[in-house]
């Protein structure tokens, strides 16, 4: 029997095999996809961990160096970008000297925006806050040299009105420099001005000053522009100059012009013993508070306090007698000192402290615009050095006076006439040359030693000099 093979065979094995194959392919593909997806999650986490480790090492390096480089930096495939967001001085409000322009920050706080990218892909952004020490300021330890220190101020604590008056539109000062930038060197008939190692001679020959004339530097800050005020004075003469900080740093020709022509003074005080720059209002230019001394017929010292404020219409400073302190007794004129304070470091209205013999007179204009509070207290002894006023806390100040081998630390309750009677701290056979308050401690300098005391009068250290 012969069977003829048909041309149209309807078998299905291949199709079935293909269907099975396809099903298997789909199953395997989907499993592979899911596995791949999970692996991608793991890969992403691993990449994240690598970035974290790079970041960790970088932060550790920043920590150990206590410095962070601004700008862009490439490490292999990693891009690190650091931008300074803000830089602020940080002030302590406990056991700090609060003389006007004497703000001494404990640190400068820099806030840096830090971002990390890997192969162009952004990985993280964080803000890093880093503290570093402020630029130093100088003391006028030797009277022949008067340092120029650009004051550190606390712009954050300024009120909205103060910020509008003192700062520019970005609520900052135009010049970022702070601390010591130069000095005046006093000679008989001329002044040497040295800023950034560039010297300039200022002629004083025509001013008829005594040989032991003095300088007092003041500052104004208006719309972000710092200006330096210079009072040059002796017993019978007073001259006031003004120049912009920007010129002081970069335009010495303009400084020469500015310091050649004093601003006119109408009704200038005489018998000047001491003076200080101070503020009569929160948003204003500095005025001068002058302590003039006179002896009554019976030989008792009396002090007259003058205010010299700038009158824009007359383009002159106008002197005005504000108060008299009598009954001081038979004391030397060098026992009269006048100090102005800036407890908030915001260039606000300044309380004035006058020590005259054993009298301490406090003029407090801080709380009332129109009425000056006056408090008179008696100290244990007078002093031939400027008193140091230290803020203990929001309610009280320490007033430190020193003379010869001892110093006294009074505790004065703010806005009152309450002051304690302390025991003197004596350094036998040593003369105190200077007391400096820094880091919440007292540094007492004698010819032989440097003593470090806290404000509970515990001696923490004694260093041979």
């Amino acid at each position: 029997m012969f069977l003829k093979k048909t041309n149209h065979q309807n078998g299905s094995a291949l199709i079935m095999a293909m269907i099975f194959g396809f099903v298997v392919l789909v199953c395997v593909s989907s499993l592979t996809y899911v596995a791949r997806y999970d692996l991608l999650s793991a890969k992403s986490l691993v990449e994240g961990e690598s970035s974290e480790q790079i970041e960790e090492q970088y932060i550790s390096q920043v920590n150990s160096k206590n410095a962070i480089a601004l700008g862009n930096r490439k490490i292999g495939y990693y891009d690190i970008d650091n931008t300074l967001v803000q830089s602020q001085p940080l002030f302590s409000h406990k056991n700090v000297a609060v003389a006007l322009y004497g703000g001494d920050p404990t640190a400068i706080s820099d806030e840096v925006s830090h971002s990390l990218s890997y192969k162009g892909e952004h990985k993280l952004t964080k803000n890093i806050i880093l503290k570093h020490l402020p630029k130093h300021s100088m003391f006028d330890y030797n009277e022949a040299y008067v340092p120029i220190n650009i004051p550190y101020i606390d712009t954050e604590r300024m009120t909205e009105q103060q910020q509008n008056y003192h700062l520019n539109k970005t609520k900052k000062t135009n010049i970022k420099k702070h601390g010591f930038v130069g000095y005046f060197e006093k000679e008989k008939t001329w002044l040497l001005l040295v800023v950034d190692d560039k010297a300039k001679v200022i002629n004083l020959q025509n001013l008829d000053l005594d040989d032991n004339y003095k300088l007092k530097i003041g500052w104004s800050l208006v719309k972000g522009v710092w200006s330096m005020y210079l009072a040059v004075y002796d017993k019978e003469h007073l001259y006031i100059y003004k120049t912009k900080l920007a010129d002081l740093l970069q335009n010495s020709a303009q400084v020469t012009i500015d310091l050649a022509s004093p601003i006119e003074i109408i009704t200038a005080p005489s018998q000047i013993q001491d003076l200080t720059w101070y503020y009569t209002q929160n948003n204003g230019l500095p005025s001068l508070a002058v302590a003039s001394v006179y002896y009554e017929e019976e030989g008792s010292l009396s002090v007259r306090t003058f205010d010299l404020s700038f009158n824009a219409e007359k383009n002159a400073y106008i002197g005005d007698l504000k108060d008299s302190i009598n009954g001081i007794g038979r004391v030397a004129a060098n026992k009269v000192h006048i100090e102005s304070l800036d407890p908030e470091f915001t260039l606000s209205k300044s309380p004035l402290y006058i020590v005259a013999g054993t009298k301490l007179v406090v003029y407090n204009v801080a709380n009332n615009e129109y009425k000056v509070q006056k408090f008179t207290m008696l100290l244990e002894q007078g002093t031939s050095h400027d008193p140091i006023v230290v803020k203990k806390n929001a309610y009280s100040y320490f007033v430190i006076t020193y003379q010869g081998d001892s110093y006294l630390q009074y505790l004065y309750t703010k806005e009152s006439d309450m002051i304690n009677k302390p025991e003197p701290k004596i350094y036998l056979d040593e003369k105190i040359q200077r007391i400096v308050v820094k880091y919440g401690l007292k540094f007492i300098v004698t010819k032989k030693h440097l003593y470090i005391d806290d404000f509970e009068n515990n001696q923490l250290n004694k260093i041979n000099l």
Partner: protein
Amino acid sequence: MFHFRKTKKTQQGITLTELLVAMTISVIVVGMGFKIYLSSKQIYKSNKNSTITDVRELSAKKVIYDAISSAGLSCKYGAKTQKYLNRTGDFEVGNDFVYDSSTIRVGDISDIGDYIKTNLAGSCKGLCYQPNSNFIMLKKESSFTKLASAPVNLTLKFDESVSWTQGDYLALCNNDDVDVVKVENNNKENNDIRLAATPYSEYGKGDYVGKFDINILYIGDTGEKDEQGNILYSLNLFTNNGSSSTSYALIDRVSDLKVRYALANNKKLHWHNVQKTIDIDKMDYEALKVSFKVDGKNFERVILV
């Protein structure tokens, strides 16, 4: 005589041989298919388990690293040198971490076991936590702002309203002190809040105020067991914001959390086990080594501090 049968031109069906061949091929193909499928499934399962373990491990490392690296307050003054003052108006025993200067504390879980159990008020499952494991306790800032003016008695004023609520812990920060205070109520209309007690130190405009929580990473009992009857643990986050406490299981199957710390001696690192509760930022520790198990496998991560 031969009889010739006329064959049809179109034949329906297939021959037995064809059927056998087709079936054989089909069986081979299907067999191969199943074999491929089963082995793929097995590989997938193994890969999946391995990947899940990897993901758990990496996630746990990330959670721990993020928690430690972001611990503390972003106070511009720093937050280590200041004196911490408890001005919350209360003092809860075992809660001293809230009021002191430490940012990271580690120790044996039994040291804070009662604290966790008490604060979770019975919502713990099983043993609540894994015995003989360590914990990592952190201060975690959740939001911050600046003072618009100096505090007046119990009131803090801000430039804009804040979302803080009664009982929240806040830290007020200046150069010398950190006052830990507690919110009594929030007056959103006046952009101010009232505190439970007055701050002690002197604060002014621009000073930092931040809300913070107390976070604890620890190994929690899930209340479940595996096929062998072993307790299943997870990496948990306990958080206390002052008014309430909660605990979340972050990553399953994580157990045996242990922390070691490194001290440098002659430029060499020496690793020490945590024997008692210690504050990491109060001493010169160089690094922490955090180890844990995921599905019984050991992992560790070194974190520079």
